């Protein structure tokens, strides 16, 4: 039974032996800890993501980071180099392909060969496990900025081993956030265990004096996720990571669209994460935040996509996110060309540049929103701990089973999928169906009243149709679904 307890070194090393046999690149001696530690210690400051985040936090910067990855090493280097120079990205990604995410390394191998033959990428990301430590080192050495692995891998153990041993100072993912939005039937028990391993690995390096950054995946399904739900999961993953010895954590959040709710979310994400880390005895964890530009459906018009990207950057900067994951004008169509990717980066960059010295003043609506988020997160965390009988690992498993935690639109069978979100008049994401969320009447009636106000304004009942309209709204240029109909008659 998985528990939120630090994995003993021996158990970890035993498991490690097995993990390294999952694919032949696991046997590279560069994966011996002495080599890996040496390699990581030699990472220059400007390529060290953990350090760069400390710098950014101190300077009050909001860093930009795209998504990007292709099948072959040289092409991947060319792509990252372009995004660094032309796109002026502050941080770079190695986005991993879908086969690797599913541990289908032999499929990836075929696709690499095919890509070489056809001279174009047949993968939607970089197959880091297949390229092994050597291949990843080549990328690390060629690029002048910090690189982070970004994926969606339920079992990312071997992948993480290879990433770090090659000098990678940051890794995205978590046992919940890389399961429920990215899988159908794998159990939380398993993925929590896998990600405890990944965190333990980072903890191991920490003991060797190397700070590696870890980032739970904040936006989950990217679709009308109420902030308190994604916050709760981010905080739990931060706690799980800290328990394994992780010292540098970036918690994430995907743009909702209402400016006040977004800024309230960013502010509470940071304070709550710090609060709970300390509460559970993790005094020395350095916390930063990442804002994901709109994660739902995009409009197909590229100029409109640029409008959303820039609006997202405004919110990220005014909300003091430490970094921001950018989108591109190709978002609605497909994986962006490097040029389109750079366009999104540059629009984001100038907005952060123009706003970085400005502050978003506190106001009553902002405080109210923050209070609501805090209350909800407290309720969710309390209930999770409760059903876990004091243990967060067990709590999470049980909470999702009972629907005490519930993610809208998640594909996983482990998720109850009973809750339904919808927007209120001003576009705040509220909850229409609570399922089994452990909220008191006070909280519930706040949501209900907000949604009723909207429904009344639109002359309809509160219903699932509202949710559907809201899912489409942004791609059609509005935040709240109802305005779509209104517009047509003007």
């Amino acid at each position, binding site marked *: 039974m998985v528990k939120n307890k630090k994995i003993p070194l021996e158990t970890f090393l035993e498991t490690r032996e097995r993990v390294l046999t999952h694919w032949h690149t696991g046997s590279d001696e560069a994966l011996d800890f002495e080599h890996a530690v040496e390699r990581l210690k030699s990472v220059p400051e400007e390529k060290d993501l953990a350090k760069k985040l400390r710098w950014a936090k101190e300077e009050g910067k909001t860093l930009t980071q795209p998504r990007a990855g292709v099948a072959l090493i040289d092409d991947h280097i060319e792509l990252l180099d372009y995004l660094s120079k032309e796109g002026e990205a502050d941080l770079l990604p190695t986005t991993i392909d*879908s086969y690797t995410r599913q541990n289908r390394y032999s499929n990836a191998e075929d696709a690499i060969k095919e890509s070489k033959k056809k001279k174009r990428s047949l993968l939607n990301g970089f197959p880091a496990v297949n390229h092994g430590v050597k291949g990843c080192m080549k990328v690390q050495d060629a690029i002048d900025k910090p690189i982070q692995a970004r994926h969606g891998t339920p079992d990312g153990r071997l992948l993480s081993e290879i990433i770090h041993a090659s000098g990678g100072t940051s890794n995205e993912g978590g046992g919940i956030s890389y399961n429920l939005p990215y*899988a159908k039937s794998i159990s939380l028990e398993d993925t929590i265990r896998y990600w405890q391993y990944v965190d333990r690995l980072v903890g191991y390096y920490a003991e060797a004096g190397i700070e590696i950054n870890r980032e739970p995946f904040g936006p989950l399904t990217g679709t009308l996720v109420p902030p308190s739900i994604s916050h709760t999961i981010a905080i739990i993953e931060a706690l799980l990571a800290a328990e394994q010895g992780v010292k540098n954590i970036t918690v994430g959040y995907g743009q909702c669209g209402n400016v006040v709710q977004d800024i309230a979310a960013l502010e509470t994400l940071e304070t709550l994460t710090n609060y709970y880390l300390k509460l559970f005895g993790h005094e020395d964890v350095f916390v930063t935040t990442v804002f994901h530009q709109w994660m739902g459906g995009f409009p197909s018009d590229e100029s409109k996509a640029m409008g959303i990207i820039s609006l997202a950057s405004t919110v990220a900067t005014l909300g003091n996110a430490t970094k921001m994951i950018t989108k591109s004008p190709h978002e609605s*169509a497909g994986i962006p060309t490097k040029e389109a990717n750079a366009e999104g980066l540059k629009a984001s960059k100038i907005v952060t540049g123009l706003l970085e010295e400005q502050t978003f003043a506190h106001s009553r609506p902002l405080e109210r929103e923050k209070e609501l988020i805090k209350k909800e997160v407290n309720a969710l965390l309390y209930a999770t701990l409760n059903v876990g009988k004091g243990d967060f690992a067990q709590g999470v498993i049980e909470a999702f089973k009972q629907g005490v935690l519930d993610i809208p639109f998640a*594909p996983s069978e482990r998720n109850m999928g009973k809750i339904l979100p919808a927007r209120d008049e001003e576009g705040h994401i509220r909850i229409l169906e609570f399922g089994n969320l452990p909220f008191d009447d006070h909280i519930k009636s706040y949501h209900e009243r907000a949604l009723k106000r909207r429904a009344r304004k639109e002359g309809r009942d509160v219903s699932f149709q509202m949710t559907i309209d809201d899912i489409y709204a942004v791609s059609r240029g509005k935040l709240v679904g109802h305005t779509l109909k209104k517009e047509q008659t003007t």
Partner: protein
Amino acid sequence: MVSLHTVVIGVIGADVHAVGNKIIEHVLKEHGFNVVNIGVLSSQEDFISAAIETDADAILISSLYGHGEMDCKYMKENCVEAGLSHVKLYVGGNIVVGKQDFKDVEQRFKKMGFDRVYPPGSDIEEAARQLKEDLEQ
């Protein structure tokens, strides 16, 4: 009353994009279809067995993550082999990697035996009407 048309829907391959799939189910039901939703991460076999079991009139495949072309290879042939040559075969979503000219993409998939091919962000209401037409011919 006319008997209901049965359609199998799902998301093919290693693809987990679930939102559009849930909406498609909802809308097709509202349009009076009998919808069998096999969900995300479904293989060609999953689609075919569901269609056989439910005696379906059409299969609507979604693919969002970019590997649709690989995942749909020989789908038509496999349907025919399974005795489903009469079943309408639709595909939609972001079915190829990157932003490509849709005319080309459509051609490629039609050659592969698909009856209708839908570009990114297609209106599912419109598709429901076309499906009704196709099935009532």
